[in-house]
């Protein structure tokens, strides 16, 4: 589904990530952890075609990212739902229209009932008409998750999705992601919240990738 083959990345200075080879199998559930500044967000952007590797090959849905045209990248992103760390929205459109945006740009119509079900599912049913600038950080993250999954992607990537949430809300969001995984989606969550990881391991067969010394490695069971 997403495969890295001896990938390196640098923003121009020294290499931030090196010699990364790994494979996210369909239906798998992964955490990505590591200290702040280790390159977790960078790794997710590589998985998403937003950044291209400095060296090595990244394959998204069996196609090498470098061979993808601009349109191909757009189409690939419809199969990968991304919850960015700093979720951005179209500030002039109400929340519901923002959540439905992936359908809109794909030329599909959103079924109103499905949309309100989804908003209810992430606990934003009351805020369908609110404008994004009026939302709290946690509400924005849940809205971003709803937007990431509305088009039915195969993969869901989430960058620090619980960064702005209290513990109760974090658990709720985790539950949503676990549910998505049970529906067959491949899930990758970048987080430094070890409690969240422990909590997840109780619910799902989650594996943990850790970035240390520029490498990404499977962590042992010591978490």
């Amino acid at each position, binding site marked *: 589904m997403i495969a890295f083959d001896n990938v390196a990345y640098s923003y121009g200075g020294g290499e931030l990530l090196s010699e990364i080879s790994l494979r996210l199998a369909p239906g798998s559930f992964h955490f990505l952890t590591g200290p702040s500044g280790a390159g977790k967000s960078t790794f997710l952007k590589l998985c998403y075609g937003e950044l291209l590797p400095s060296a090595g090959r990244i394959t998204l849905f069996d196609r090498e990212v470098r061979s993808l045209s601009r349109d191909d990248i757009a189409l690939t*992103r419809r199969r990968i739902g991304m919850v960015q760390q700093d979720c*951005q929205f179209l500030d002039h459109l109400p929340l519901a229209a923002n959540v439905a945006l992936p359908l809109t*740009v794909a030329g599909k119509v959103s079924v109103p009932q499905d949309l309100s079900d989804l908003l209810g599912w992430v606990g934003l049913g009351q805020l369908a008409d609110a404008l994004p600038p009026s939302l709290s950080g946690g509400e924005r993250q849940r809205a971003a998750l709803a937007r990431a999954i509305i088009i039915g992607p195969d993969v869901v990537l989430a960058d620090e999705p619980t960064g702005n949430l209290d513990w109760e809300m974090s658990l709720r969001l985790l539950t949503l992601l676990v549910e998505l995984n049970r529906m067959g989606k491949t899930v990758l969550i970048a987080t430094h919240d070890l409690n969240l990881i422990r909590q997840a391991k109780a619910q799902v067969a989650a594996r943990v990738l850790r970035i240390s010394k520029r490498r990404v490695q499977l962590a042992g069971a010591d978490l």
Partner: protein
Amino acid sequence: MTLLSLLTPDRKADRQADRVVPPSGHTAWLTSFTAGAMAFLAVFALALSLAAGRLADRWSDALERTATVRLSAPEDQMDLQTKAVLAVLSTTPGIASSRAMTDAEQRDLLKPWFGPDLPVDALPLPRLIEVTESGAGYDGEGLRQRLAAEAPGAVLDDHTRWRRPLAVAAGRLRLLGLLSIALIGTATAAMITLAASAALAANTQVVRVLRQVGARDAYIARAFVRRFTLRAISGAAVGTVLGMIGVALLPSTDTAGSFLTGLGFQGLGWLYPLTLPPLVAVVAFAATRAAAFRKLRELT
């Protein structure tokens, strides 16, 4: 993306696409205003060049390459001097032919003024001699001097010659009018390009969000292009109508001087300015489309 499909108003997908671009205050207003002002100016440039064209045609037609020598002489010298004039004319370079009019022809010429029963023989009428120029034309001043020497009663009347520089000037004026229209079109394209680029640059966050949710460049471009094209065509329509009203309100033939005669549209000529709004739409479409794709490639 074609211009026609872009302007089809009631497609649901388009109305949704329109909404993804935030209403952008002054660039949008600037586009309408520019298109309107330019269309307004273009109407006048068009009126000017059409009128100048008519003038040039009229004056060139009037420049039949003929002149007249009018000979007044005592009756007994008339034939002698006529021969002398014809001799001078036949040896003047630049004159193709010359011919004395018959009494019958002269009577025909005078008929409108004096009626058919004019006794031409009884009146001391001057003899008219028709002169036809050849290609390069003749030296008017030199001919006048030779005639004065050979036939004192002969007067060279080449009144249509003064129109030649005017006909040339009118032709130039028409060219200038057309050039102005071309310049107006180019300036319109440039300004709309600037406005569209500015709008895209001001909306980088919108572009980033759209990209993130899987929008193609063509989709994003279309949203911007549609907005600017619609703005431009409505602005141009208003400018054109105001310009046409302005032309219609110009002083009429009777009250204005001879140059202003017909500075306006005549008959089917009124259809010409109506092509301006669609033309502006085409210009705006091409300009914003090019600007949008260029800008989108810059914003990776």
